[in-house]
Each structure stands twice: as structure tokens, then as C-alpha cells.
């Protein structure tokens, strides 16, 4: 039953490399296009070949918190959202996610911004320190200050403090108290705490080997892994207490806590963050359309589509907890503006973003306006839509177009449909090698224009929206709704979904040694649609429960 995961390394098909002729008179003779690295030859068992080709992924031992996680930490500590990470440089994504340990660097600007933000946070805490130490309600001396600082730093650094930790923080306190008393002392000590490495980094110590190549984690370390996976934020008191009591020393104990945590509101953040990163949702609000072709487009549309999609994700992924619902649900959440815009025949009266039942053609994630507008300015881009689906839903990896290829399509003309124009270039044998994996998928979405609306005709030509997903278990389809339904049943999609979640949970790319884990997860995911089940299962994997010996070097 467990099917080995297929990743499309496109050069395996052989057509994606080779020389491409010069079609533009001014361009110089093109260099040979080399095949992408790490491309296995097409074997019978494509899954294991891929693992053999992958190098072991880089260490994930010490990981910087992402901006989202830092903000969650500060909100938890300070008691309010203060925009601590405003102006922080965004993270780089690896394998689609921001929490890749190897890729999370520390840009100079980040510390600069954090320096001022930490001072602000310090001032807020210093104005109301009592939550950290009861003495602060009526005492303002150094002993009480130390109690506040100790408690604050333990929570901020997510571990107990020793004297060597405390001394430099209290040295800052002393400078501040000397100049401005208790409050300035606390301000500086808190500022220093929030700028220190133990705040920004999750660190795991080297411990004993418990299985071949796997080292133990302490209770506190497992608590951090649980909290930052399931909540994208710090552990709560109950989780810390469970860690202290040794409850997290067994996989069953970990699962019990995970169950509890998945019931808490913080768990929504994990789902929201997964989808935001997986589907690159922040791109949506930057979208612009050519008013010459889409006169109904206004600047407020992308923001509204994003809101629609946020509600849709909440309902399908969180409330219904179903990846099948994500891909096939026949409802959405639209306000009057969107209903008027989409013209799907839905009654216009709305009280904000109400739930609506949709015509069948609009079922599923792939038919959501926000998804459909992400590519293309004056016309649809079957290539880019196809590429997005190939990469996000099937974990395909295609090399970029050769540098000298003009990757902007020709202008729309009344003479041909977008599909016909794209087919013309894709039929070039030198282009087809890669484009066969993208264009036919995008063709199946052509009944939705680049601005997310349904159309039957394209400049007086009827639209042919038959599509195909080659090299997969999906095959031919027609329209976005059918593609969604087929993806929901596709083992290839399920395996890709598992790998995306693995990266999101573990903070590194999957490697050869993870194959048994992934196969077990694939098997489980073949029997359920539940996000929760997958998250729980991930907390039970070796990758989550232990640390790799190689990461400790």
C-alpha cells in the first residue's frame, strides 16, 4: 500500500536539458543548458532513487526563531502585541518553509531593529513587573529586581538560569538603576535578555545516544519542539510542568501533550502559518491586473480575496480538519463586493464575509479567486499556474528557464487563445521537455481568467479546459474543481503533503535516513484526511523525538 514517493526531477525524463536555439537576432549564441545537479536516471523505483541522490540535509541543531515565532514570544512575555519584528528582514524559504535551520541567518539589520524594539519591550515590562515577581507590587529594590529578571529570562530563554547567566543581566540592571532607579534597571535588563542568543535561538544540547545515530532530548527541549511546531510560539505553564515532571520522556507522554495542545487556540497559528508559507499567500495582496483587460478589477479585490481564503482555510483545515475539504469544499466566504465581482450567480446580500454555497465549478482551493490571480497580469499564465501546482502539490522540481529565454509571454491577441499561444512554444521539442510538466496543468484552469473570474470564451474563441498532469496518478482532468477532486485522491499529492509538513515540523529537508519515517507517514495519510492526525503522527517520529548524532558535530 505504501507507495514510494515520486518527486519529479525533471531531467529524469531527459527532455529538460540540451541546447536551445537562438530565436532572437540580437542575442548571442546561447551556452549549453546543463542538466540540474543531483538528478537520478529514471529507475523503476523512483522513490528510492531520489533518496540515494540527495545529500544528507544540513544540521538542524541550533535554529533561530522565525519572525513569527519571535513576535509570538514577545507577545506572550510582554502581554501585548508590540510589533517587535516590524522591519525585520523576512526569512529565506527552503523547501517552501521559513523555519529551515540552516537557512535562518542573522542579518545585520535584524539586530539593529531588535535593539530598539527590545528597549521598547523593556520599558513596557518595567512599567508593570508584578506578573513576573509578586514582590514587585510593592518593593523596588535590587533583590526584587533580580527576582523579576530571573523569571523573565527563564521564560524568554525557555530554560532555567544559572548564576553565570544572571550576572551580566544584573550588570545591565545596575547601570540602569544607577541612572534611573528600579524602572530603568529593569528596562535595560529586559532589553539585554531579549537581545541575547538564547532568546533568538532554540538550542539543543548533546546527550546520550538512545538509538543508532539518534541522541536523546531533554524534557525542556521536547517541550520547545512541541510548542514551536504546534503553536509557533512558546510553551505554556502546563507544558513546562509536564516537561519538568518527566512526562515528555516517553513518546506516549509527548502525544498526550500534543493532543492537549492541538485543542488550544494557539494551534491555529500552526495551520495558518503552514498554509501561508506553503502557498506563498503574502504574494496575493501584491497582485495587480491590467485594467485594459479586466475593467472590473479594483485595488481592494486582492485583499478581499485573501480574507476569503483565510476564512476558507479556517473552515476546511481547522474546523473540518480535512485536506479533502481543502481541495474540494463547495463553499466559501464572500462579502457583497466579492460576490458581485465573481458573478457566480450567488445572492448579493451579505453581512460581511458570510458562508456561501458555490456552483460545482468553484469547488475547492484551486478555484478560489485568490489562488487564481497569483500569476499573470494581462492574461492567464498556464505555465506559472501549472508550475505552482507541480511544485506545491506534487513536490515537483523544475529548473528555471535558461537565462537568455524571454520568459514573458507574447501579448494577448484576438487571433488566438492563451492556450494556443502557449502550445505553440511548448511544442518546440527543446521546450517541451520541461513544459509538459507545467502547461497541461495550467490549461485545465483556463476557464478562470487571470483576475479569478469564470469565462466561457476568450476573445470569441471557446475555451478548451481539458488538462493533464503527466507523470502522476492523476492523468487527465477538466477544470479546477475536477483537478482538486483528483488531487484529493492522489497518492502523489498525499506524499508531497506529508513532505511539506515534515519540513515545517522538523525544520530541515527530508533525507535518505528519513525514508522509513516518511513511508510510515504516507501509509497513515492514505487512510485519513486529518491535519491533526498528521501533526500528531509527526510528533511521534524519530526525527521529532530525537536529535541526529550528525547534527551534534
Amino acid at each position, binding site marked *: 500500500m505504501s507507495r514510494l514517493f515520486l518527486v519529479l526531477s525533471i531531467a529524469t525524463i531527459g527532455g529538460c536539458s540540451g541546447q536551445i536555439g537562438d530565436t532572437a537576432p540580437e542575442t548571442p549564441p546561447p551556452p549549453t543548458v546543463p542538466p540540474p545537479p543531483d538528478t537520478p536516471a529514471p529507475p523503476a523505483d523512483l522513490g528510492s532513487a531520489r533518496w540515494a541522490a540527495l545529500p544528507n540535509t544540513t544540521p538542524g541543531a*541550533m535554529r533561530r526563531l522565525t519572525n513569527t515565532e519571535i513576535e509570538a514570544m514577545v507577545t506572550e512575555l510582554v502581554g501585548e502585541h508590540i510589533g517587535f519584528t516590524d522591519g525585520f528582514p523576512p526569512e529565506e524559504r527552503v523547501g517552501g518553509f521559513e523555519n529551515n535551520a540552516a537557512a535562518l541567518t542573522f*542579518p*545585520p539589520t535584524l539586530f*539593529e531593529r531588535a535593539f530598539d524594539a527590545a528597549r521598547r519591550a523593556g520599558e513596557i515590562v518595567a512599567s508593570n513587573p508584578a506578573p513576573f515577581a509578586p514582590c514587585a507590587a510593592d518593593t523596588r529594590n535590587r533583590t526584587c529586581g533580580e527576582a523579576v529578571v530571573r523569571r523573565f529570562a527563564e521564560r524568554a530563554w525557555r530554560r532555567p538560569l544559572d548564576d553565570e547567566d544572571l550576572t551580566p543581566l544584573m550588570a545591565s540592571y545596575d547601570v540602569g538603576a544607577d541612572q534611573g532607579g528600579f524602572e530603568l534597571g529593569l528596562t535595560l535588563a529586559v532589553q*539585554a535578555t531579549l537581545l*541575547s542568543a538564547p532568546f533568538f535561538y532554540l538550542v539543543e544540547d548533546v546527550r546520550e545516544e538512545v538509538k543508532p545515530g539518534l541522541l536523546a532530548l531533554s524534557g525542556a527541549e521536547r517541550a520547545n519542539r512541541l510548542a514551536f511546531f504546534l503553536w509557533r510560539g512558546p510553551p505554556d505553564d502546563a507544558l513546562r510542568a509536564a516537561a519538568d515532571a518527566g512526562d515528555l520522556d516517553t513518546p506516549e507522554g509527548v502525544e498526550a501533550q500534543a493532543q492537549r495542545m492541538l485543542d488550544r487556540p494557539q494551534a491555529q497559528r500552526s495551520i495558518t502559518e503552514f498554509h501561508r508559507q506553503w502557498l506563498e499567500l503574502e504574494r496575493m495582496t501584491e497582485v495587480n491586473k491590467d485594467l485594459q483587460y479586466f475593467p472590473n478589477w479594483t485595488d481592494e479585490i486582492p485583499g478581499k480575496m485573501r480574507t476569503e481564503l483565510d476564512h476558507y482555510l479556517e473552515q476546511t483545515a481547522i474546523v473540518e480538519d480535512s485536506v479533502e475539504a481543502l481541495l474540494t469544499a463547495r463553499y466559501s466566504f464572500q462579502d457583497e463586493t466579492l460576490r458581485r465581482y465573481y458573478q457566480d450567480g450567488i445572492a448579493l446580500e451579505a453581512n460581511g464575509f458570510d458562508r456561501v454555497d458555490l456552483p460545482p465549478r468553484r469547488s475547492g482551493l484551486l478555484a478560489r479567486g485568490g489562488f487564481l490571480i497569483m500569476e499573470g497580469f494581462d492574461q492567464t499564465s498556464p505555465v506559472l499556474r501549472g508550475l505552482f501546482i507541480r511544485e506545491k502539490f506534487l513536490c515537483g522540481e523544475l529548473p528555471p528557464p535558461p537565462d537568455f529565454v524571454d520568459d514573458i509571454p507574447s501579448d494577448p491577441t484576438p487571433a488566438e487563445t492563451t492556450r494556443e499561444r502557449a502550445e505553440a512554444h511548448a511544442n518546440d521539442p527543446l521546450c517541451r521537455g520541461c513544459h509538459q510538466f507545467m502547461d497541461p496543468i495550467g490549461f485545465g484552469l483556463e476557464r478562470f481568467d487571470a483576475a479569478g473570474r469564470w469565462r466561457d470564451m476568450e476573445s470569441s474563441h471557446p475555451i478548451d479546459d481539458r488538462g493533464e498532469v503527466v507523470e502522476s496518478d492523476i492523468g487527465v482532468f477538466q477544470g479546477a474543481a475536477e483537478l482538486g477532486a483528483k488531487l484529493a485522491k492522489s497518492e502523489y499529492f498525499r506524499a508531497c503533503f506529508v513532505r511539506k509538513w515534515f519540513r515545517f515540523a522538523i525544520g530541515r529537508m527530508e533525507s535518505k535516513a528519513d525514508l522509513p519515517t516518511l513511508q510510515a507517514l504516507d501509509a497513515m495519510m492514505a487512510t485519513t484526511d486529518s491535519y491533526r492526525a498528521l501533526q500528531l503522527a509527526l510528533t511521534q517520529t524519530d526525527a521529532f523525538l530525537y536529535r541526529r548524532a550528525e547534527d551534534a558535530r
Partner: protein
Amino acid sequence: MSRFDRRFFLRGTAGAVIGLPALASLSRRAEAQTTSAPGRFVFFAHPLGMYPELFFPTPPGGVPYTFPDVSACNPRQTRCRPRTYRTGETAMSNPDFPLSRTLAPFAPYREDLLVLENIDNYSGNHKGYTCMSTGRPINDVKLATGISVDQALAQHIGRDTRFPALQVGVKSGETPHARHAVSWYGAGRAALPESNPERLFDRLFASTPANNDDLARLRAQQQSVLDATLGQAQRLKARLGRADQLKVDQYLTSIRDVERRLSQTVEAGCSRPDAPPAGYDYKSTDLVEQTTTLQLDLLAMALACGLTNVATFQMAFEATNMRHPWLGVDTRWHDLSHTSGNEDNWIDLINGYVDIARWNAEQIAYFVDRLQRLEAWSDTLIMWTTPMHNAQYHNGHNIPIALLGNIGNQLDTNRHVRFAAGEHVINDVLLTVLRLFGVEADTFGAPDANKRPLTELLRSA
């Protein structure tokens, strides 16, 4: 004999690092170790190309450009004009060049102007925005694959300034992406521009207290905080394996950068400018004129005060669709740069496209005027360029480049210099810039895109 003589310029990397001469400007601080003021560089990044027919000067004996009769174009042929515009294929130098419509605002500074033609970008298309400053391709996640010219220069002339390199913008992009950043610390590491005048002001000027006592007190506070973080980082580092130690080193570098920032003094001769209005709407299209002025004023003062010697200024970002209502141009910028020639109002659209470029030249001219008033213009070099010539073709050949200013009087300015077509890539220009500042380098960016420094631009020895 000036240190910046031609023989030095041609020298390879075998020689030792050479100190740079003192300069006359009153507002610069003298350095103890090296001689003062190594020069200043500002890279102005313009998106979406410029209409080359009205950027490049008419060549000698040529006819001033007029719009063609587009009604004659075949309706099925979407492009009426040649894919790459050139005034000619061969090398030439014209000191009597007429200022084109786009370059007309530089008239008061014509003596310091060099217009370069037939330089190709490393890559065409919108991604060329990053290539024009790095001279390297982008990777498949649309990030640069190497350091940009400003950051490379900052490593030499920005080491002792509070901000080794400053990135400023107006309505610029906010995520690391080839279309949003021209300044890159290195492969994959973008230095994004600050588009918010309030935040820029805070970074540059706000943390400077009014008097020395307050300054000393604040310094003590800040230093104590930094000491605590440094100590903790060293403790952590001692527990870690090699790969993780490198991560902590990066973090430590950031701390030391801030530490150095704190220890710099602001020039006595500089005046702290007024803060921008609180809550200023820096994203508003209707305020772009004022925002640009605010940003350029802050940048000029930062340079004059020695807070930085190297900067990039980004107007919007590549493939932007911003409008220019104050110019009477309502069509969006990306649309204007992608006309087909078949539009009924094609000439109006092109005029809009040119007006935008010209307006940007006016802003640069304003900036030069500010620098002159602050006595910070001598030994300053501005480079203004864009990743494509006419963006409709997404073609990176023959990109518009203007150099304004001089370093040590090395450049033979006040010319239109045309190179032989297809001979040089932007890397040669960027290398030339670095060598003007005394950086001993043989190549910049992708090595095989370098041919040689452009000695044609220099005064003869």
C-alpha cells in the same frame, strides 16, 4: 600628481592597499589611520527601463529622434520597432553631445556627466534589476548569487562609518527578491531599502541625544546591554559544534555592527535635520514627490555627516505598477513600459514613460544640488541605471547608464561614450567604479562577464 592616476587604475591586485588623499570638504571627519574621506558612491536604481530613443543622445551627424508613424505597423505584428535601440554599433566619444529629453535635468551638472551606451546588463528581463548591481545571475528562488557593487565598495570605504552602506527607497519592495533589492550583502542576502522617512530618520539621527552628558549616559546604558549579549553569545558558542558556531559568529558580527554604530560620533558640523511628520503616509502615491524629497534630504545629510559613504536609492521596485498623478500620467508604470506600438494613444503612452524617467532625473539633480549645498559633492559619484532598455522587449542589451560626478578627477566627464555593441557587460562598469575608489580588483561579479576596466572613461594620464 593625483593618487588616482591612470597607471594606478590599470594596476592589478599585486600592490598593497593604498591610502587615499585628504579632501577639502569641511564637513568630513579626518580619520586617524588612513587619510580622510575616501569618496562617496550612490547607486540610483530605476525600474522598467527607459525609452532609449529619448535617453541616448543623438550621435554626431545624427538626426534628433521623432516618433514614427505607427499606423503603418502590421496589426498582427505586435512590435513596430527594432528590438534593441542603438545610436550606432561602433565605439565613439562625443563631448558635444546634446542632452536628451530624459537627461535634460542634468544640464547644470553636464560637466560632471558621462552617458554610456552599448553596455549590456548581465541578464535581461525584470530579474536584471538584481543583475545590474551584482553582475551575476539570480538563482531559482529569485535571489542574487553574489555581492552587489555598493556592498563590495562599502567593505573598503565604509568600514569606519556608522552605516557601511545605506539602502533608501521610495515605495520600494519589502521582501528579499530579485525585483526588490539591488543591494546584496552576498548570495541570497538582500539589504532591503528603507522607504519610510520616519524610520530612516530614526536610524540615522534620532538616537543622538542633544548634549554630551545625555549622550554619555545613553552610551553607558547601551554598552551594558551589548556587553551582556556578547558574554552570553560567547558562552553559547563554547557549547556548540562547528556549524552552529558559524551561526553564532554571524550573530556576533551583528552585535559588533551595532556596537560600532553606537561608538561613532555625529559630525559637529552636521545639523540634525527635522524629523518627518509623525505618522507620515509614506506609501501614498499622492505624496511620492514629498516622500522622495524627504528621503533624498535625509540621504544627503547622512552622506554629508559622514554617517555613510555608500548608498543605494531605489525608486519603487522592478515591475512596479505605481502611478504618477502629479505628472499627469495616470497609466501605471509597468503598463507604460510594455506598450505594443498598436495602441491608438501610443505616443501619449511613450511620452508618459519618458516623463517618468525625466522626473527621476530631476530628483537626482535635486539631490546633487543638496549635496553641493552641504559641501558633500566633490569626490562623489552617482550611477543611474535600469535593468532593461525598453522594458517591453525585456531585453537587457544597451541599458541606459548615466554617471554623474567624479572621484579624484579621474573620469573624463562631459561626454557621451558609446562602446562597440556587444563588447561589454555591466560588470566592466561596476569594476571600473570599484577601481575609481582605489579598490584593487580584477573582476566583479561573474568572472566570465568581465572583460576589462573601461579605461576609455578616464582622463589620459
